[in-house]
């Protein structure tokens, strides 16, 4: 990342539901091709932040730029075009219950490409193989475990080869081994294709293994309390909240 080009730019974002201010004047940038982690305690507004970035919710105040386009005041057609370059894994996976896993993954292909049925099936098999779900194309979401749904959701988010991938807690509900495999997958996609990744996660393993930069949100200040390289934050931060967060990791040398 020699030239740091901001593909996502959040400026003074304020989110409020009723009287409840969730995010207050949050600003940050995500650079092209980096893996950017959003961390923070549960309920501090991480999912809310993602939803605002992809324009599912209109913020109370502030601007959000994607590829330089201000998404807070563009029309639906333009936004739809912009979203075509974005893949999103929702916290609850958001698989369509009435469709099989294979149909879920191939849905964007049927809508936005002219591929033949065979080509689509091939792509679906490839993507399911990537997320270690090969063979599950005819299962329905209700027949999968939570972690498997997450992975199917990742496969669906990736199927259009988006330039930006948003993952809301991708390793929640995964066993450590599969979780590590997801980390490798994320890293390979990022370095191989150059996909920009914005990941919400609490997993220290994931944070240290894959991320270039991290921001930490906090429920009390309703904003960012730390930003930067996670290793540096762990080493040098004086803030007890940040220290607590990173020190959840058991010290292996002592054990």
């Amino acid at each position, binding site marked *: 990342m020699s030239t740091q080009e901001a593909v996502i730019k959040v400026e003074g974002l304020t989110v409020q539901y009723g009287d409840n201010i969730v995010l207050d004047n949050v600003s940050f940038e995500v650079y092209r091709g980096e893996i950017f982690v959003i961390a923070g305690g549960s309920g501090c507004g991480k999912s809310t932040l993602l939803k605002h970035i992809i324009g599912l919710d209109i913020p109370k105040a502030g601007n959000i730029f994607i590829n330089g386009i201000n998404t807070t005041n563009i029309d639906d057609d333009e936004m739809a075009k912009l979203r075509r370059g974005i893949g999103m894994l929702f916290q609850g996976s958001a698989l369509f219950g009435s469709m099989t896993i294979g149909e879920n993954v191939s849905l964007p292909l049927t809508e936005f490409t002219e591929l033949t049925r065979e080509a689509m099936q091939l792509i679906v098999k490839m993507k399911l*193989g990537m997320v270690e779900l090969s*063979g599950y194309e*005819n299962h329905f979401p209700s027949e999968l475990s939570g972690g498997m749904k997450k992975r199917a959701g990742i496969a669906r988010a990736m199927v259009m080869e988006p330039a930006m991938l948003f993952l809301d807690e991708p390793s929640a509900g995964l066993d450590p081994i599969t979780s590590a495999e997801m980390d490798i997958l994320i890293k390979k996609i990022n370095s191989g*294709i150059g996909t920009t990744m914005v990941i919400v996660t609490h997993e220290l393993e994931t944070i240290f293994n894959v991320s270039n930069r991290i921001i930490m949100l906090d429920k009390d200040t309703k904003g960012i309390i730390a930003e930067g390289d996670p290793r540096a934050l762990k080493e040098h931060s004086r803030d007890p909240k940040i220290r607590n967060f990173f020190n959840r990791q058991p010290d292996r040398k002592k054990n």
Partner: protein
Amino acid sequence: MPENNRVFSIKGQKQGDITLFLFGRIGLENFDALLREIQGFFSEYNPSHLTVDLEKVDYLDSTGALFLVRLEDEAKTRSVPFTIANVSDEGKQIMSLIDRRALTAPSLAAKERALNLLEQLGNETINVLKDIYEVILFGGEILYEIAFSIRHPRKIRWNDVISYMKKVGVDGLPIVALISFLLGLIMAFMSALQLKQFGANIYVASLVAVAMVRELGPIITAIIVAGRSGSAFAAEIGTMRVNEEVDALITMGFNPTRFLTIPKLLAAMFVVPILTGFSSFFAILGGMVVGVLGLSLTIFTYVQQTMNAIEMFDVVSGLIKSVVFAAFIAAIGCQRGFKVRGGAEAVGNATTSAVVSAIFLIVVIDSTFAIILHYIE
């Protein structure tokens, strides 16, 4: 963006050592074109060795990598030795993501086979019988829980009962009133057209009153309650099933039937008779509008004629009937909810089924009542 039709250039003899130079973007956007080109290539050329050169490729995504894997497979099936040249580090990473076994792995679950007509008929019959069995079983359970609740009235969740009484009764009143009023209006108007010919205008009042109090009041109310509340009960419990909330209740030691069904059942049984009363009242009001405005009856004569026509027996039997309707609507709604397995779609099916089954039961119960009342009278 497969604007130019060539995505690779070919160097070499038709039969000999051939190098394919891929260039530009190799990915999802031209996956189709690439696959077709490759078919064309192999039908035209018969290489002794195939090299794919990626030097000029400036974008390769996982679908592009999938194409390269397919290309290699195609070469292999024709026993052509295959090498890839000038792969960037990035390219290697993406290629390592492709799991070859996954591409040919059989599906773990068969796609549902379409059944033939006879199989469908058999299946449906079994389902209906099973359904009847389950409903009867659930009915027994409810009877047991009612008996339990009567002996332990403190264990009933009265707060829930009140809240459901509001949802079923108060919130349902406007639509019941409106439909009943219209029904009374229409009934009076249609019958007036006939009765006028005999100068029997006054009997419009009797007709509306008797029809509503005996039959139509309970039925129309029951159908509206089935549509509004029976479906809501099914959706509520069905959603709880999908979210494992019912399992959570069981795990915490609750009896889900008692916890979820009894309050709804009691609430419905309390308020549906009241709604039925309102239904008859508003229908009579509707009839009166026609009588006063269209048939030049006075309000007083209309009311008097109505009072004369209605017998206590009709009122009581109508109310009892509506209590029974209410019990069955609530019970079938809850049963459909408990039956939900799977995802959100199953909840939708459950609400539909709750309404359809409730209306079916209403008709059956009403006919039963008609026979019983005929002998009592």
